C-alpha cells in the first residue's frame, strides 16, 4: 500500500486514483480478477446510466401502443427476457433495477461512511466513556442480525411507504444502520493505532489542537481502507436490499424496479416452469455482487503487503528501503504492526 499511495502525488493524477493505481500494480491472476471485477462493475454502472435509453420499456410499463403486455410470456422478440405475472417486461426491469441498486448503494454507503467515520474518529481519538458507550452500542447493533435490523428500520423509517425515494431511503437508511458499526469499528481501530504513531505524537508535542490532529493527521490516514470497504459494503448492501425485497420489504414495482423484489415474486413462477422471471434478476444480483466483490478483494489484496507478497511488483531499491521504515504506519492491512491478531483477520 505504502509505495503506491505515496507515489500518487508525483505520478500523473490518473494513476494516483485508488482503483487505477491498483490496476497498475496488479499482475497475473490478481490482475485478471481485478479486471473481471472492473468489467462487471463497469457494465453494471453503464446499465445504470443508460437504463433510460437502452431499456425497451419503462420499469412500470404495462402496455404500449399495440396493447397491454401479456403476462408471463416467455422470452420473445418483443420481450427479450419475457414478462412477469403482472405483465412487466423483465429486461426493462432488470436494467432499471441497476439504477435502484446504485442509488441505494450510494446513499446507504455514503451515509454510513459519513456517520461511521465521524463517530469512529471521535471515539477512537478521545477514548474514555464516550468511546466505551459507542463501542458497546456498536457491538450490540452488530450482534443484531443485519437483515432483521434492516427490516425493523425500514418499518420504522418509512412505514413501508412505496414512493421511489421513500422506498430507496428506507432501504438505504436501514442498510446504513447496519453498516455504521462496521465503519465505526474499522475507523476507530485505525484511529487508535494512528494515535500512537509518532507523526501524530509529534503533532501533539507541537501543541496542535485535537481538531487539527484529527482533521489533518488522522483522517486521511485512517480512511485509506475506505475504497475497499466501499466496494465490499456496496455488494453487501445489494444483498441486503435483495433480502429486504425478498422478504417483502422492498420497493413496490410501480415505484422502482428492484431485483430482490422481483426475485421474490418469481419464486412461485420458478416452480411452475416460468424461469425467466427469476433467473435474470437473480443473475443480475450475482454478477453485480461478484463484480464489486472482485474489485474490493483485489484492492484488498493489493493493499495488503502480506497478500501482495508474491506479486511481481515491488519497488526500486530506494523505495523499498523507505517502505521498510514506513511499513508500520502505512500498511492498510498490516495488523501485525499492532500485534493484534483479530485485526489482521478483520481487514483481510
Amino acid at each position, binding site marked *: 500500500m505504502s509505495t503506491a499511495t505515496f507515489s500518487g502525488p508525483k505520478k500523473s493524477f490518473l494513476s494516483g486514483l485508488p482503483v487505477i493505481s491498483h490496476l497498475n500494480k496488479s499482475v497475473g*491472476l490478481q490482475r485478471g480478477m481485478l479486471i473481471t471485477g472492473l468489467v462487471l462493475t463497469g457494465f453494471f454502472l453503464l446499465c445504470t446510466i443508460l437504463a433510460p435509453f437502452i431499456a425497451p420499456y419503462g420499469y412500470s410499463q404495462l402496455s404500449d401502443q399495440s396493447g397491454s403486455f401479456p403476462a408471463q410470456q416467455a422470452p420473445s422478440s418483443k420481450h427479450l427476457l419475457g414478462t412477469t405475472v403482472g405483465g412487466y417486461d423483465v429486461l426493462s426491469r432488470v436494467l432499471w433495477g441497476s439504477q435502484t441498486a446504485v442509488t441505494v448503494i450510494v446513499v446507504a454507503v455514503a451515509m454510513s461512511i459519513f456517520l461511521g467515520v465521524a463517530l469512529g474518529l471521535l471515539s477512537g481519538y478521545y477514548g474514555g466513556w464516550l468511546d466505551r458507550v459507542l463501542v458497546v452500542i456498536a457491538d450490540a447493533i452488530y*450482534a443484531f442480525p443485519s437483515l432483521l435490523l434492516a427490516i*425493523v428500520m425500514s418499518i420504522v423509517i418509512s412505514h413501508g411507504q412505496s414512493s421511489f425515494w421513500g422506498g430507496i431511503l428506507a432501504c438505504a437508511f436501514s442498510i446504513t444502520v447496519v453498516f455504521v458499526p462496521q465503519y465505526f469499528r474499522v475507523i476507530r481501530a485505525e484511529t487508535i493505532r494512528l494515535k500512537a504513531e509518532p507523526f501524530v505524537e509529534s503533532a501533539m508535542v507541537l501543541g496542535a489542537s485535537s481538531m487539527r490532529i484529527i482533521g489533518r493527521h488522522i483522517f486521511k490516514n485512517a480512511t485509506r481502507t475506505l475504497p475497499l470497504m466501499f466496494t465490499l459494503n456496496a455488494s453487501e448492501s445489494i444483498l441486503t436490499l435483495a433480502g429486504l425485497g425478498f422478504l417483502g420489504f422492498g420497493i413496490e414495482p410501480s415505484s422502482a424496479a428492484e431485483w430482490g423484489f422481483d*426475485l421474490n415474486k418469481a419464486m412461485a413462477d420458478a416452480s411452475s416452469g416460468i424461469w425467466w422471471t427469476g433467473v435474470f434478476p437473480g443473475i443480475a444480483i450475482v454478477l453485480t455482487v461478484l463484480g464489486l466483490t472482485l474489485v474490493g478483494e483485489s484492492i484488498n489484496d493489493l493493499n495488503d503487503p502480506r497478500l501482495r*507478497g508474491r506479486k511481481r511488483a515491488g519497488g526500486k531499491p530506494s523505495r523499498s528501503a523507505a517502505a521498510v521504515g514506513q511499513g508500520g504506519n502505512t500498511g492498510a492491512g498490516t495488523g501485525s504492526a499492532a500485534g493484534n491478531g*483479530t485485526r489482521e483477520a478483520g481487514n483481510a
Partner: protein
Amino acid sequence: MTSLIEVPDVEPVAVAPKRKSGQGGGLGRYIVVRFFLIIPTIFILVTLVFFLMRVIGDPITAAQGGRLPPDVLAQRIHDAGYDRPIFVQYFEYLGQVVTGNFGTTITDRRPVVEMLSTFGAATLELSINALIVALAVGIPLGLLAAQRRDRATDAFLRFFAILCYATPVFFSGLLLKLTFSVWLGWLPVAGRTSTRTELAMSSLAAPSGIYWLDALRSGNFAAFGDVVSHAVLPAIALGFLTAGVFLRLVRTNVIGTLGKDYVEAGRSRGVSEFRLVTKHAYKPALIPIITVMGLQIALLLGGAVLTETTFEWKGLGYQLVQYLNARDFVAVQGIVMLLAVIVAITNFIVDVVAALIDPRVRY
C-alpha cells in the same frame, strides 16, 4: 446474510488479553471480565428492540386493523395496555425479564421460553448442519488456495468463494430445489422431515428438538435417513454461503502467517511445504480465523432468515419475521434477547477459545 467484511475486533471494551502478561491468573481473570461484558450488550439490544417495536405499531392493529372501526380498535389497544406511557411499559418489561418471566407471545399464545426452545432447536440444527458444510468446504479449500496462491487453483477457488457469497441464499436455494428436488427428484423440497417421521418422533418422551438427534434416539434409521435427506439442501445453501467466507478467511490468514519469519525458519530447517501450510501457518492463523468464525456462527444463528424461509425450516429467523409482521412485541423481544445472548456467548466462547489456542495467554 453473512457479512463480507469481517469487521476487526478492536479489543473494544472487550479487553483482548494483553499478550505479554506472563503473570499467572491472566486467563481466569480475563474470562470473568469478558463474561461480564456480555451483559451490557444484551441490555442494549433488549432496550433497542423494545423501543423499536413500540414505534412500529401494535399487534392488535396488525391483526384486526382491517375489520374493526377505529374506536373499537383504540378501545382494545387500551384494554391490552399498549397505550400506557412507554417507560411504564419498559420498566414493567425489564422487571419481568429480570425475574425470568418472558411472557407469552401475543399472536400465537405460546410461552416465550417454549417458543424459543422449539424454534431455537430448529435454527440450531440448521446452523450446525451449515457449519459442518462450511467448515468441511471452507477450511480445506482455504488451505489449498493459500498453498497454491496466485496459481490457477487459487484463482478458481477464490472465484468460487466469491460466488458462494455473492449468490443470495434464496436464489441458490431456489436453484438447488429446482435441480435436486423437482428435476432430479433426489431430495425433498423443503421442511425438516416428512410427516411420517415427524409423527414417529412425536412419541418421544423428551424430544430435544434437534431432529437428527431425536431420530437417532427413536432408534429409527429410516427416520434418520429422512431427517438427513431433508437437511442436505438447506445445509448446502447456507453452508456454502458461509464456506465462501471461511475459505477467504483461511486463505488470507494462512497466507499472512506464511509470510512470517517462523515459516521461513521452518523452511530453512527443511520442513516440507505441505507441512508448513497445514501446521506452521495454519495454527497461528487459527486465532483470527476463530474470532471471525465465531461472529459468523453467531450471525448464522440469527441470520438464517432467508434460508429458513426458502426451505420451510421453521426456526427463529423465519419466525422472527412473522412475529415482526404481526407486531408481536413479546415474541420479538424474546427472540432478540435470545439472539443477543447467543451472540454474546458465542463471542465470549470464541475469545476464550482463541485465548486458549494462543499459549501466550494460557500461562
